[in-house]
């Protein structure tokens, strides 16, 4: 380090004040990332709403991530039909042809989402355990919201998040055959926390155009249909899953990013 050492050195980041409930801080940071900062660590990466999205998939993926990180309340501001092509809103979210109007719409959305985030914060408050310093010196401040990779500091939510993201990635590229499709529907139970629409598979195979679009890995038009299917059918159950999932608290951030580095 090149800086001189003042008395009683502090290298802890003098960022925002922290609560004694680290999971709340983590939630708060997660929501910041959704709206302003983005999160490159996540796969696929979260692009911040304020900056717009490079393509429709990233928009869809953001919507899904926002569902998890607002306990499903993103729906109060952006309903699934808003995410449909030609709805008037989706086009504003994409950066493909960015104009001042789009920028304005996105800024308004970010502002409106603040309330939805607060609602999630209030609901989550009860579930976030309080931690204070114990005899061993383990403290709540050992959790570092910047490093924490579990949304809401709950591994269950990370699993939910990655399960949902993976399901969307699979859906995006379409399916090889009916068996692959069947397996995908089967696997939806976990990422929807068991809230999958009843008779989903029957409904799919009962609609020849939909079935064809899901099994067509080539045409652009089929991709659009799959997108509509994702927004209209899959996303609502994903949002419900985020509302209903509970999970135990556990941190994976060593926290003290500026304490001793763990060799």
């Amino acid at each position, binding site marked *: 380090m090149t800086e001189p050492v003042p008395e*009683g050195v502090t290298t802890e980041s003098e960022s925002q004040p922290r609560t004694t409930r680290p999971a709340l801080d983590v939630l708060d940071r997660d929501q910041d990332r959704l709206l302003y900062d983005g999160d490159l660590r996540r796969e696929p990466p979260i692009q911040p709403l304020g900056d717009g999205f490079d393509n429709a998939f990233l928009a869809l993926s953001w919507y899904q991530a926002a569902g998890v990180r607002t306990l499903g309340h993103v729906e109060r501001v952006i309903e699934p039909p808003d995410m449909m092509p030609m709805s008037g809103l989706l086009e504003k979210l994409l950066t493909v042809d960015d104009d001042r109007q789009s920028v304005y719409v996105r800024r308004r959305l970010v502002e409106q989402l603040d309330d939805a985030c607060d609602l999630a914060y209030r609901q989550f408050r009860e579930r976030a355990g309080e931690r204070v310093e114990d005899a061993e*010196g383990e403290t709540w401040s050992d959790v570092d919201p*910047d*490093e924490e990779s579990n949304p809401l500091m709950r591994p269950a939510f990370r699993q939910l998040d990655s399960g949902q993201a993976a399901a969307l990635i699979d859906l995006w590229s379409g399916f090889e055959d009916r068996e692959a499709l069947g397996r995908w529907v089967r696997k939806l139970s976990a990422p929807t926390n068991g809230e999958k629409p009843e008779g989903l598979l029957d409904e799919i195979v009962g609609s020849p155009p939909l079935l064809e679009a899901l099994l067509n890995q080539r045409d652009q038009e089929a991709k659009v249909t799959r997108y509509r299917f994702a927004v209209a059918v899959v996303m609502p159950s994903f949002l419900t899953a985020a509302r209903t999932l509970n999970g135990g608290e556990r941190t994976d951030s060593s926290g003290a*990013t500026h*304490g001793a580095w763990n*060799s």
Partner: protein
Amino acid sequence: MSKSFSSREKSRRKKQEVLQRLHEDFEPWEKSRQARYHAGSKSWSRLSNVHNDGEVIFRQFENNDGNGLKPFHKKLKSLSRTARISGKEEAHPVYRYPSAYLDAIIHLDDAEKWALEERRLDDDIIAEQPAPRRKVLEWLARPENEDVLMAMGDGGTDLWAHSEPGEGKTSFANVIGGVRMPEINNETLLWMLTLDELECLPLAPFMTIAVPEGVEYEVHAKPRNPTLPTVEIELTDVFRDTVEYSDPRDLMTKIVPGGLYAVLPDPLFRGCEQLTRATYTPARYAEEPAEVTPLRDVNFAFLETRAKDDEFLHPTTMINDEFSDLVPLNPEADENDTNRKVKGWPVAQGKARKKNLSMINLSHSIARCDEGPREKNRWFVTMPNTPPPASSLSGIGNVPINMSYINKFADRKGRAVIWRNDNFAPIQWPNPYRRYRFRGEISVSYPRREEALDAL
């Protein structure tokens, strides 16, 4: 009167119990390239597809949270990821000031550095490295880590850990020298043993112990539990295998890249005088006690042969415990030529460093050592409750930390601050002694040397 049958049976059972404990704790890892080579089945080159010890050791050590140690390249990635997300100013000092720590433990030679600078990752010298090392090198070659790569020196490094007894020097040497360096550098480790205690026991299942040829020795395991007997054991009850050497140069022809060796000193000092041009007197030839050369003096000869003879050039780390006894302040020109030996140390170290020899020195104090070795040393590791040396101490240069920094960051055992010139970084490591459950001492003795010393 002889003991009754049942009491003999009972003591036999208790001995068995001790041996059983040792065998469970120190079950040797016999699948690696180094293990198979020393088992003698195949030549070194024919074993080139087998994994090295360094690729598995870190998995066998647990972090403080009970999980296995993460591979080092993953730890590096998480450092640079934090820097990418929150900006470099917010990154950990280990990343911001790579010369403080990363330079000390990642060893590169100039050819490797060149390849990394030009991002020639498919070059043989990068691509053919063992996976854990290759991934560290690939990390260094990423554009975002250019500053780290620029900070890397070539050749060996030297770390000097200092503290009062019991503040974690030995565990530092075990984890950083014995676990991380073999993982990152496929380093060969030479742990220079003192006979009093075997401080490298956590690494013993991966270690070959080097024994002086033709010297009689005894090994005892003495459990701390008073109801259990002291048991005479074989070295291989604890260590993976043994290799015999006739003199220091001979050992250099027998060790292999990536091997971990615990070196027992030769009480006869064969080959040492020729190497160091200084006097060595084994106990049996001495006429008075002051003439007898301390066993630790073999370290001078090992350093000399590593520096001059070019028998072995692979990156090697030498661990010298009780360093202040080895190179004391104001060494006397006594019967053992201590002065000549100590003054020769920095010269030989300088040569050996260019040939990829690194050192981890452990000592109680830095001030009570000769200034020559102090001047040669670049990294210091200050342990908890230990005042950093004063900048006015000759051969130290700038000391960038003070006691209040130590108290804040090296606030418990298993933490320390590593520093070099203006740069410093706090680090921590897990307790390696939790790997085994045997409680007690294991000691090696040379009965003939002791008899000769008693006779004086």
